[in-house]
């Protein structure tokens, strides 16, 4: 185990030269660096903070302590979803949760964080680039930053994320280091064929499958079409992170740190077959047919392109028979408002949720039991979090099902 060495500047901060707030944050960073055996700290260029989601009195006490001690973030810091939709407050049914959620979100803004309130900060301008050290929390944001942007973040979470933002430092350990970022196991997706790999559902299904198989390993995907875009990679990463804790993946020919095909095939190789994808789809759905109470899409938050695609699907055709929710970031909502996409969505009866997500707070009616989603992550967490049964479908299947009030799957 290496001994942690701090710079004179870091020692000074720890000793209180810049105030008690940043000293507290530095104590937390240094304690964690010691536990992880880091040789030093690393300067970060940005942070994404998840601590603004309410988990009890301790969430508020910690944020208020930092505010009272005069702490401020030292690097540009975005905020993850909170427990409250601040633009549509009437959507959150639980008044106590709404009040505490709002108070916590305000405290993080008081610390100097930007009120982005999105789990998809990579959809915002000024995102980090290849090789940049950052401190991001929220599993889907972590895996996207590492894999798609090539920025470097370890798995940070509650308390640590804001302490990194306040000190501008993170332990130099885990995925901050070059050695820890190499792929360790290859998933050969070529047997799935282009017809499947060009479909929307390929990505949440592959993500869930790969995440369930790898544990803490770093998967390398072979056969992903070069046309796979950020929305597909987002869906893959989110499902892989929720099913198995994946914080970094590589896709040959697609992501910036991926090995060559020859290098990938030298690792242990697992082939992915269509049968496995069908089984994964069954495993991710806790019901498969019959009446539907609601549809929820946009987990992680829908990109502008996804909002526009939903609007296009809803432009002609029969009206929606059941409640339809779309979660997105407030910045994306503003773009959709400007372009008219928001008007189309709302006219069709879609409830647009911002700043939070339908599976982390009290938005859906407790009487609804059967909900359809196009998200592998939502299907994984919602049954436990909000006590619903989930069925996975493509965006088109979600729209078709919402128009009839029953589950409609194209090739079930």
């Amino acid at each position, binding site marked *: 185990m290496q001994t942690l060495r701090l710079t004179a500047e870091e020692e000074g901060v720890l000793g209180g030269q810049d105030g008690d707030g940043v000293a507290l944050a530095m*104590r937390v960073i240094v304690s964690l660096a010691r536990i992880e055996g880091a040789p030093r700290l690393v300067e970060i260029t940005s942070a994404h903070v998840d601590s603004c989601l309410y988990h*009890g009195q301790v969430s508020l006490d*910690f944020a208020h302590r930092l505010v009272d001690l005069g702490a401020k973030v030292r690097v540009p810091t975005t905020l993850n979803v909170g427990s409250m939709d601040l633009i549509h407050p009437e959507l959150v049914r639980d008044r106590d949760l709404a009040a505490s959620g709002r108070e916590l979100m305000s405290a993080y803004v008081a610390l100097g964080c930007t009120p982005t309130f999105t789990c998809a900060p990579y959809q915002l301008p000024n995102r980090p680039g290849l090789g940049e050290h950052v401190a991001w929390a929220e599993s889907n944001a972590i895996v996207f930053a590492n894999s798609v942007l090539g920025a470097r973040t370890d798995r940070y*979470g509650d*308390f640590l994320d804001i302490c990194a933002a306040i000190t501008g430092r993170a332990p130099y350990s885990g995925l901050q280091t070059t050695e820890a970022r190499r792929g360790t196991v290859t998933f050969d997706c070529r047997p799935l064929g282009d017809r499947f790999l060009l479909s929307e559902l390929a990505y949440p299904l592959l993500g869930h499958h790969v995440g369930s198989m790898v544990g803490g390993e770093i998967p390398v995907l072979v056969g992903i079409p070069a046309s796979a875009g950020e929305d597909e990679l987002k869906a893959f990463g989110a499902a892989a992170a929720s099913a198995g804790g994946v914080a970094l993946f590589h896709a040959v020919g697609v992501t910036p740190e991926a090995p060559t095909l020859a290098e990938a095939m030298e690792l242990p190789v697992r082939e992915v077959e269509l049968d496995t994808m069908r089984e994964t789809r069954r495993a991710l759905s806790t019901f498969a047919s019959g009446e539907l109470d609601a549809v929820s899409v946009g987990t992680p938050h829908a990109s502008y392109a996804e909002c526009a695609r939903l609007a296009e699907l809803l432009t002609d055709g029969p009206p929606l028979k059941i409640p339809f929710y779309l979660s997105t970031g407030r910045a994306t909502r503003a773009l959709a408002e400007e372009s008219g996409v928001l008007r189309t969505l709302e006219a069709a009866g879609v409830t647009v949720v911002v700043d939070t997500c339908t599976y982390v707070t009290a938005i859906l009616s407790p009487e609804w039991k059967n909900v359809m989603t196009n998200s592998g992550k939502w299907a994984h967490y919602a049954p436990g979090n909000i006590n619903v049964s989930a069925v996975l479908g493509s965006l088109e299947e979600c729209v078709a099902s919402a128009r009839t009030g029953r589950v409609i799957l194209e090739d079930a």
Partner: protein
Amino acid sequence: MITGRTLNPGTASGEVVRLTAPLSFWGGTDENGRIIDAHHPQCGVVLAGRVLVMESGRGSSSASSVLAEQIRAHNAPAAIILARPDTIIALGALIAHELYDLTTPVVVVDKPPYDALPTNGLLQVDADPTQARISWSTVTR
């Protein structure tokens, strides 16, 4: 007596509760410190006030908040002994110490000494920043 590495300092004693599978505090325990994860072999067991022995934690980083909240409400384990370092658990204890001045020692004991820890009776944990000592007198129940 065996020695270990301190992740969070403190002194505590209590009846030992040894888990046979990793546990996530988030989604795995309720606000009274009871295991509610239906898939956990020891579902229903209460951890509050006891010395928790388990190889490692599991899952979401929100577990830091859940543990800190249990410490605040005096429903957390009195001490936690692990076989592998777990930053999520250590962080929960560290934050509760900073905020409430409540100390919950978190200690790592390498294997094989970890396997020698008793499965019942009282355990005493004395964890200072440089070293942790765990002692017990075997009591038959």
